[in-house]
């Protein structure tokens, strides 16, 4: 019924008491895509992923995974998905090998095939030398790769990763994303949540969730083009806080945010550079430089979240 879609979500809602953790979201993920689900902590990422995997029951709305209904056919879904949680659901008191064998057995992978999968996982995760080590003795990065391997032992169609890189060092994160690419090249749909912007850049498509609502959807490139209409200016000026106050009153600067040692300003066009520079210098701020830059995903999300906050405040007033 869903054609080429691995995941379809239609008006999904999850409330905990009066709190709407997921608030009427709809989207779909085509097969074979790396779909990034992005948002700050507590935005509703994990809640959504848990509903899709059948761990949580939705309050309202519908969804399908691998063509099966999340409410009516959770067991069919379970056989076709792999899931890796933030906690790397591994048994620390079992060896690397035993963890793979356990999950393989639970998913009903037959003996001969399991031996083959085990070899593949150990190789992929670079754990062949450590097959007989207790899992608790592994460094976090290795645990993470083993958890990925266990989630893939039954060759799922769709892989759900819930903040898989939380608490992992940058090098391990890099390696981990290489593995995700490998998996995706083999045709597996990857649905990953994260709050790291650099990881978001790796995804084919992104959904941004904020306060339970899906506020943006598209490829990283599309998002950058679509949501920062106008020009993004990077301003280096001293003192920076005085500059921030001045820009807040400057009609040419639509949005202002501190970005490291500089300020990022959204303007209608690059023509706004000169009036802004004059306004700052009039206010006694020494301007080092003002450049038009290509927005990063972070700029996009800061802009989107501010818009969402303003809409919420406007609606509430």
């Amino acid at each position, binding site marked *: 019924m869903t054609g080429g879609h691995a995941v379809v979500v239609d008006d999904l809602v999850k409330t905990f008491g009066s709190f709407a953790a997921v608030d009427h979201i709809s989207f779909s993920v085509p097969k074979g895509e790396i779909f990034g689900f992005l948002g700050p902590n507590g935005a509703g990422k994990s809640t959504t992923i848990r509903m899709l995997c059948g761990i949580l029951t939705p309050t309202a709305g519908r969804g399908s995974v691998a063509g099966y209904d999340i409410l009516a056919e959770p067991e069919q879904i379970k056989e076709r998905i792999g899931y890796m949680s933030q906690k790397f*659901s591994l*048994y620390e*008191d*079992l060896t690397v090998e035993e963890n793979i064998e356990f999950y393989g*057995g639970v998913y009903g992978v037959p003996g001969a095939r399991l031996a083959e999968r085990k070899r593949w996982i150990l190789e992929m995760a670079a754990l062949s030398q450590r097959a007989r080590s207790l899992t608790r003795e592994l460094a976090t990065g290795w645990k993470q790769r083993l958890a990925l391997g266990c989630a893939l032992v039954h060759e799922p169609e769709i892989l759900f990763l819930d903040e898989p890189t939380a608490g992992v060092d940058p090098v391990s994160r890099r390696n981990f994303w290489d593995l995700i690419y490998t998996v995706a090249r083999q045709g597996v749909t990857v649905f990953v949540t994260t709050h790291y912007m650099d990881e978001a850049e790796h995804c084919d498509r992104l959904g941004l969730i904020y306060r339970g609502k899906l506020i943006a959807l598209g490829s990283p490139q599309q998002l950058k083009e679509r949501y920062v209409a106008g020009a993004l200016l990077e301003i280096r000026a001293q003192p920076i806080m005085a500059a921030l106050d001045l820009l807040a009153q400057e009609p040419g600067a639509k949005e202002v945010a501190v970005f490291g040692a500089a300020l990022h300003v959204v303007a209608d066009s690059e023509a706004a550079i000169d009036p802004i520079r004059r306004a700052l210098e009039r206010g006694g701020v020494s301007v080092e430089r003002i450049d038009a830059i290509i927005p990063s995903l972070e700029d996009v999300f800061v802009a989107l979240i501010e818009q969402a906050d303003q809409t919420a405040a406007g609606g509430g007033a």
Partner: protein
Amino acid sequence: MILRIWMVCWKEFVQILRDMRTLAVVVVLPVLMLVLYGYAVNLDVRHVRLAVYDQDRTRESRDLIGAFSRSERFDVVAYLDSDHQVTEALDDGRARIALVIPLRYSANLARGRVVPFQLIVDGSDSTTASTAIGYANAIVQQQSARISLAAVQRAGLAAGGAVIPVDARMRFWYNPELKSANFMVPGLIAIILMMLSALLTSMTVVRERERGTIESLIVSPVMPYELMLGKLIPYVIIAFADVILVIAAGRLLFRVPLVGSPVLLVICSAIFLTAALGIGLLISTISGNQQTAMTIAMMATQLPSMLLSGFLFPINAMPTVIRWLTNIIPARHFLVIVRSIFLKGSGIALLWQPVLLLLMLGVFLLTMCSVRFRKKL
């Protein structure tokens, strides 16, 4: 399905074998408890400290004292010279019971009068006190029978004549020496297994929840009943080893005879274990962390099993409501079974009722577990 149960089972076994703490609990705890309870919870009263204040100081009075001191129930610890000293001896706990023989004891005896004398008992420990009184009574009765017999004989009647018209010859069946151990050890087997089983299984589901592995299990195709069975089986096997360990220790350390069928005992133990482990598993599905699970397991098993199972206090003496309540405590039914098999050698024909009740409790508890553990967070 079988494969998945087996996988859970195997995983659980490996985890238990790698966990020294669990292993220690499994091996050391039952024996330790048996020894502690077996020796400490001893209802036999022996060597009660007796103080004597003999105002009469005659052959007859010494004879009475001798009747006490010859019995191993009483040890004469002091000979006193005044009422004041009697009070002192009881106050400072040197003696638990005082025997006061009045002046003219032997003179009155000779005249064939009823001769009163005093036994003052420290009632602060009522259990010991009432048992001690029982023993004292028996000694006194024997003594008066001998005295009247001697008097009658002196009066010239033939011995063996109908001097004592009614003579109760009491005999205790099943435990002829009234050894506490014979009564306690089979009971202890029930209590120990109950606590141990609940303790062991109460951790298993919570542990998965604490470590986050529960999410992977929920997302996997494992059905709740497969998970519950897979988790239960290793503990049944371990608890079974404990059954044998505790029975063997009871036989060797306390020389408790096993009169009945060992096979029946083993079968009944299996039924009991299912119920006991089921309680632990149920606790595990409802508690948030291992600490809570352990506390609930101790509270839910230890106290009711000790107090309401008939282990220490007879159920017949309890108020009706509580007597009804005792039926939901597995140890209560198992206690009847173990004691009967151990001491009376009862067969299934006499025991089907508690066995059936245990079976029903077990099935009910395991069903509750599977229902409670829905595959959701």
